[in-house]
Protein backbone atom coordinates (compact mmCIF):
# COMPACT_ATOMS: atom_id res chain seq x y z
CA UNK A 1 0.00 0.00 0.00
CA UNK A 2 1.46 3.38 -1.00
CA UNK A 3 0.03 6.68 0.17
CA UNK A 4 0.98 9.76 -1.79
CA UNK A 5 -0.89 12.26 -3.87
CA UNK A 6 -1.12 9.67 -6.62
CA UNK A 7 -3.76 6.96 -6.61
CA UNK A 8 -3.22 4.35 -3.89
CA UNK A 9 -2.32 0.81 -4.99
CA UNK A 10 -3.24 -2.14 -2.80
CA UNK A 11 -0.75 -4.85 -3.74
CA UNK A 12 -2.71 -7.49 -1.83
CA UNK A 13 -5.53 -7.12 -4.32
CA UNK A 14 -3.39 -6.76 -7.49
CA UNK A 15 -3.21 -9.82 -9.73
CA UNK A 16 -0.50 -8.31 -11.98
CA UNK A 17 -2.75 -8.11 -15.06
CA UNK A 18 -1.00 -4.92 -16.25
CA UNK A 19 -4.17 -3.20 -17.46
CA UNK A 20 -3.50 -0.04 -15.44
CA UNK A 21 0.00 0.30 -16.86
CA UNK A 22 -1.27 -0.12 -20.42
CA UNK A 23 -4.13 2.35 -19.87
CA UNK A 24 -2.24 5.22 -18.24
CA UNK A 25 -2.21 8.00 -20.84
CA UNK A 26 1.01 9.56 -19.52
CA UNK A 27 2.99 6.37 -18.75
CA UNK A 28 3.21 7.24 -15.08
CA UNK A 29 3.03 3.56 -14.12
CA UNK A 30 5.59 0.84 -14.66
CA UNK A 31 5.08 -2.89 -14.08
CA UNK A 32 7.31 -4.77 -11.64
CA UNK A 33 7.19 -8.34 -10.36
CA UNK A 34 5.23 -7.05 -7.33
CA UNK A 35 2.75 -4.96 -9.30
CA UNK A 36 2.58 -1.48 -10.82
CA UNK A 37 4.70 1.33 -9.37
CA UNK A 38 4.80 5.02 -10.15
CA UNK A 39 7.99 5.43 -12.13
CA UNK A 40 7.03 8.98 -13.04
CA UNK A 41 4.87 10.15 -10.14
CA UNK A 42 5.02 13.80 -11.17
CA UNK A 43 3.51 13.09 -14.56
CA UNK A 44 0.42 11.49 -13.02
CA UNK A 45 -2.49 13.82 -13.68
CA UNK A 46 -4.86 11.98 -11.33
CA UNK A 47 -7.14 11.25 -14.27
CA UNK A 48 -8.35 8.09 -12.40
CA UNK A 49 -8.33 5.93 -15.54
CA UNK A 50 -6.16 3.32 -13.77
CA UNK A 51 -8.68 3.13 -10.91
CA UNK A 52 -11.50 2.70 -13.39
CA UNK A 53 -9.80 -0.01 -15.42
CA UNK A 54 -8.47 -2.17 -12.57
CA UNK A 55 -10.72 -5.25 -12.43
CA UNK A 56 -9.61 -6.10 -8.89
CA UNK A 57 -10.41 -2.74 -7.32
CA UNK A 58 -6.73 -2.61 -6.34
CA UNK A 59 -6.34 1.08 -7.19
CA UNK A 60 -8.16 3.83 -5.35
CA UNK A 61 -8.11 7.48 -6.33
CA UNK A 62 -9.85 9.10 -3.36
CA UNK A 63 -11.38 12.56 -3.58
CA UNK A 64 -12.25 15.19 -1.02
CA UNK A 65 -15.36 17.31 -1.51
CA UNK A 66 -15.40 20.81 -0.05
CA UNK A 67 -16.92 24.22 -0.58
CA UNK A 68 -14.64 26.56 -2.48
CA UNK A 69 -13.53 29.29 -0.10
Amino acid at each position, binding site marked *: *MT*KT*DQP*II*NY*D*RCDLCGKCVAACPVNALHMTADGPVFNQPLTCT*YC*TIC*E*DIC*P*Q*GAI*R*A*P*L*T*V*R*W*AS
Partner: protein
Amino acid sequence: MIDERYFKPIPLISSLSSTTQGMIAERGFLRELQAGETLVIEGMPAEYAYFLVSGSVRVIRMRRDGRMQVLARFGPGAPLNIISLLNQKKVNRASIETLTTTALLVLSASDFDYLLSHAPDFSKALLGIFAERIATITDLAAGLSLYSVRARLAKFLIELADKPDAASGWTQDEIAAHIGTVRDVVGRLLREFEAEGLIKRSRQQISLIDREGLFNQIEHEDR
Protein backbone atom coordinates in the same frame (compact mmCIF):
# COMPACT_ATOMS: atom_id res chain seq x y z
CA MET B 1 -11.91 -7.79 28.65
CA ILE B 2 -12.56 -4.71 26.54
CA ASP B 3 -12.32 -1.29 28.13
CA GLU B 4 -15.83 0.16 27.87
CA ARG B 5 -14.51 3.49 26.55
CA TYR B 6 -14.29 1.75 23.15
CA PHE B 7 -18.10 1.50 23.21
CA LYS B 8 -18.53 5.29 23.00
CA PRO B 9 -18.24 5.61 19.20
CA ILE B 10 -20.74 2.75 18.76
CA PRO B 11 -24.22 4.09 19.67
CA LEU B 12 -25.73 0.63 19.26
CA ILE B 13 -23.58 -0.61 22.16
CA SER B 14 -23.15 2.55 24.25
CA SER B 15 -26.95 2.80 24.53
CA LEU B 16 -27.28 -0.69 26.06
CA SER B 17 -27.78 -1.49 29.74
CA SER B 18 -24.63 -1.78 31.84
CA THR B 19 -25.31 -5.52 32.23
CA THR B 20 -25.31 -6.05 28.47
CA GLN B 21 -22.28 -3.81 28.03
CA GLY B 22 -20.54 -5.95 30.66
CA MET B 23 -21.37 -9.11 28.66
CA ILE B 24 -19.92 -7.55 25.51
CA ALA B 25 -16.83 -6.29 27.33
CA GLU B 26 -16.23 -9.80 28.66
CA ARG B 27 -16.82 -11.66 25.40
CA GLY B 28 -15.63 -9.26 22.73
CA PHE B 29 -12.14 -8.34 21.65
CA LEU B 30 -10.52 -5.52 19.71
CA ARG B 31 -8.88 -5.81 16.32
CA GLU B 32 -6.83 -3.18 14.52
CA LEU B 33 -6.13 -3.22 10.80
CA GLN B 34 -4.14 -1.05 8.42
CA ALA B 35 -5.68 0.54 5.32
CA GLY B 36 -6.31 -1.88 2.45
CA GLU B 37 -6.63 -5.05 4.55
CA THR B 38 -9.42 -7.53 3.96
CA LEU B 39 -11.56 -8.10 7.02
CA VAL B 40 -14.19 -10.43 5.57
CA ILE B 41 -14.03 -12.56 2.43
CA GLU B 42 -17.18 -13.09 0.35
CA GLY B 43 -18.33 -16.72 0.28
CA MET B 44 -16.36 -17.80 3.39
CA PRO B 45 -18.14 -18.92 6.57
CA ALA B 46 -19.41 -15.98 8.63
CA GLU B 47 -17.56 -16.30 11.93
CA TYR B 48 -17.61 -12.85 13.49
CA ALA B 49 -19.74 -9.76 13.97
CA TYR B 50 -17.87 -6.47 13.83
CA PHE B 51 -18.59 -3.00 15.16
CA LEU B 52 -16.51 -0.14 13.78
CA VAL B 53 -14.81 1.82 16.58
CA SER B 54 -12.78 4.06 14.25
CA GLY B 55 -11.80 4.28 10.61
CA SER B 56 -13.80 3.40 7.52
CA VAL B 57 -14.44 0.32 5.39
CA ARG B 58 -16.03 -0.51 2.08
CA VAL B 59 -18.24 -3.49 1.29
CA ILE B 60 -17.38 -5.04 -2.06
CA ARG B 61 -18.52 -7.94 -4.16
CA MET B 62 -17.11 -9.66 -7.23
CA ARG B 63 -19.42 -9.36 -10.22
CA ARG B 64 -20.00 -12.25 -12.59
CA ASP B 65 -17.68 -10.66 -15.14
CA GLY B 66 -14.86 -10.76 -12.57
CA ARG B 67 -14.90 -7.04 -11.83
CA MET B 68 -15.12 -5.74 -8.33
CA GLN B 69 -18.18 -3.69 -7.36
CA VAL B 70 -18.46 -1.35 -4.39
CA LEU B 71 -21.73 -1.87 -2.50
CA ALA B 72 -21.37 0.50 0.42
CA ARG B 73 -19.00 2.39 2.66
CA PHE B 74 -19.26 2.66 6.45
CA GLY B 75 -17.72 4.79 9.20
CA PRO B 76 -17.47 4.65 13.01
CA GLY B 77 -20.39 3.07 14.86
CA ALA B 78 -21.49 0.77 12.03
CA PRO B 79 -22.19 -2.88 12.73
CA LEU B 80 -20.72 -5.12 10.01
CA ASN B 81 -21.37 -8.65 8.73
CA ILE B 82 -24.50 -8.97 10.85
CA ILE B 83 -26.81 -10.08 8.05
CA SER B 84 -24.35 -12.84 7.08
CA LEU B 85 -24.43 -14.11 10.67
CA LEU B 86 -28.20 -13.98 10.94
CA ASN B 87 -28.63 -15.74 7.63
CA GLN B 88 -29.22 -19.50 7.98
CA LYS B 89 -26.31 -20.33 5.67
CA LYS B 90 -23.91 -18.22 7.78
CA VAL B 91 -21.80 -17.34 4.76
CA ASN B 92 -20.23 -13.91 4.20
CA ARG B 93 -22.44 -12.19 1.63
CA ALA B 94 -19.76 -9.72 0.55
CA SER B 95 -16.15 -8.83 1.28
CA ILE B 96 -15.20 -5.99 3.61
CA GLU B 97 -11.98 -4.05 3.14
CA THR B 98 -10.52 -1.30 5.29
CA LEU B 99 -10.04 2.12 3.70
CA THR B 100 -8.05 3.62 6.58
CA THR B 101 -6.42 2.39 9.75
CA THR B 102 -9.36 0.80 11.45
CA ALA B 103 -10.26 -0.40 14.95
CA LEU B 104 -13.07 -2.90 15.41
CA LEU B 105 -14.87 -4.50 18.27
CA VAL B 106 -15.31 -8.18 17.43
CA LEU B 107 -17.79 -10.77 18.68
CA SER B 108 -17.58 -14.42 17.66
CA ALA B 109 -20.67 -15.96 16.04
CA SER B 110 -21.40 -17.95 19.21
CA ASP B 111 -21.08 -14.89 21.48
CA PHE B 112 -23.26 -12.92 19.06
CA ASP B 113 -25.92 -15.69 19.29
CA TYR B 114 -25.58 -15.72 23.07
CA LEU B 115 -26.24 -11.98 23.24
CA LEU B 116 -29.21 -12.27 20.91
CA SER B 117 -30.87 -14.78 23.19
CA HIS B 118 -29.78 -13.38 26.58
CA ALA B 119 -29.80 -9.61 26.07
CA PRO B 120 -33.13 -8.35 24.73
CA ASP B 121 -31.82 -4.75 24.56
CA PHE B 122 -29.05 -5.94 22.23
CA SER B 123 -31.58 -7.66 19.90
CA LYS B 124 -33.81 -4.59 20.00
CA ALA B 125 -30.92 -2.24 19.20
CA LEU B 126 -29.96 -4.45 16.23
CA LEU B 127 -33.54 -4.36 14.99
CA GLY B 128 -33.35 -0.57 15.21
CA ILE B 129 -30.22 -0.59 13.02
CA PHE B 130 -31.94 -2.81 10.46
CA ALA B 131 -34.98 -0.56 10.48
CA GLU B 132 -32.66 2.40 9.78
CA ARG B 133 -30.93 0.58 6.95
CA ILE B 134 -34.27 -0.44 5.41
CA ALA B 135 -35.39 3.18 5.69
CA THR B 136 -32.19 4.29 3.95
CA ILE B 137 -32.75 1.77 1.15
CA THR B 138 -36.38 2.89 0.87
CA ASP B 139 -35.26 6.54 0.69
CA LEU B 140 -32.72 5.61 -1.95
CA ALA B 141 -35.37 3.70 -3.92
CA ALA B 142 -37.73 6.68 -3.61
CA GLY B 143 -34.89 8.98 -4.66
CA LEU B 144 -34.20 6.80 -7.69
CA SER B 145 -37.72 7.34 -8.94
CA LEU B 146 -38.10 10.97 -7.78
CA TYR B 147 -34.76 12.45 -8.66
CA SER B 148 -32.47 12.10 -11.63
CA VAL B 149 -28.97 10.86 -10.99
CA ARG B 150 -27.81 14.42 -11.71
CA ALA B 151 -29.90 15.75 -8.81
CA ARG B 152 -28.80 12.89 -6.54
CA LEU B 153 -25.14 13.60 -7.24
CA ALA B 154 -25.57 17.35 -6.63
CA LYS B 155 -27.37 16.58 -3.35
CA PHE B 156 -24.68 14.15 -2.19
CA LEU B 157 -21.81 16.52 -3.04
CA ILE B 158 -23.52 19.24 -0.99
CA GLU B 159 -24.03 16.80 1.92
CA LEU B 160 -20.36 15.81 1.85
CA ALA B 161 -19.08 19.39 1.65
CA ASP B 162 -21.29 20.28 4.62
CA LYS B 163 -19.71 17.49 6.72
CA PRO B 164 -15.93 18.01 6.48
CA ASP B 165 -15.18 15.00 8.71
CA ALA B 166 -16.98 12.68 6.26
CA ALA B 167 -15.99 14.43 3.04
CA SER B 168 -12.60 12.82 2.43
CA GLY B 169 -11.51 9.61 0.78
CA TRP B 170 -14.45 9.02 -1.57
CA THR B 171 -13.75 7.34 -4.88
CA GLN B 172 -16.10 7.70 -7.84
CA ASP B 173 -17.14 4.03 -7.37
CA GLU B 174 -18.07 4.69 -3.75
CA ILE B 175 -20.01 7.83 -4.64
CA ALA B 176 -21.81 5.84 -7.35
CA ALA B 177 -22.74 3.05 -4.89
CA HIS B 178 -24.06 5.63 -2.45
CA ILE B 179 -26.36 7.37 -4.91
CA GLY B 180 -27.47 4.23 -6.75
CA THR B 181 -25.67 4.52 -10.06
CA VAL B 182 -22.43 3.41 -11.72
CA ARG B 183 -19.01 4.98 -11.83
CA ASP B 184 -19.14 5.95 -15.51
CA VAL B 185 -22.21 8.09 -14.89
CA VAL B 186 -20.60 9.81 -11.89
CA GLY B 187 -17.50 10.53 -13.99
CA ARG B 188 -19.57 11.97 -16.84
CA LEU B 189 -21.67 14.13 -14.52
CA LEU B 190 -18.62 15.49 -12.70
CA ARG B 191 -17.22 16.53 -16.09
CA GLU B 192 -20.57 18.16 -16.94
CA PHE B 193 -20.76 19.96 -13.57
CA GLU B 194 -17.25 21.27 -14.14
CA ALA B 195 -18.04 22.44 -17.68
CA GLU B 196 -21.09 24.26 -16.30
CA GLY B 197 -18.99 26.01 -13.65
CA LEU B 198 -20.71 24.30 -10.71
CA ILE B 199 -17.56 22.57 -9.41
CA LYS B 200 -13.84 22.66 -9.98
CA ARG B 201 -11.69 19.55 -9.88
CA SER B 202 -8.01 19.56 -8.99
CA ARG B 203 -6.25 16.25 -8.37
CA GLN B 204 -7.82 14.86 -5.21
CA GLN B 205 -10.23 17.67 -4.63
CA ILE B 206 -13.71 18.55 -5.82
CA SER B 207 -14.46 22.16 -4.90
CA LEU B 208 -18.09 23.22 -5.02
CA ILE B 209 -18.11 26.67 -6.57
CA ASP B 210 -21.70 27.54 -7.38
CA ARG B 211 -23.86 26.81 -4.32
CA GLU B 212 -27.04 28.12 -5.90
CA GLY B 213 -26.43 26.32 -9.16
CA LEU B 214 -25.98 23.02 -7.33
CA PHE B 215 -29.13 23.54 -5.23
CA ASN B 216 -30.96 24.36 -8.45
CA GLN B 217 -30.15 20.88 -9.77
CA ILE B 218 -32.23 19.45 -6.90
CA GLU B 219 -34.95 22.08 -6.58
CA HIS B 220 -35.61 22.04 -10.27
CA GLU B 221 -36.87 18.48 -9.83
CA ASP B 222 -38.75 19.17 -6.58
CA ARG B 223 -41.18 21.40 -8.46
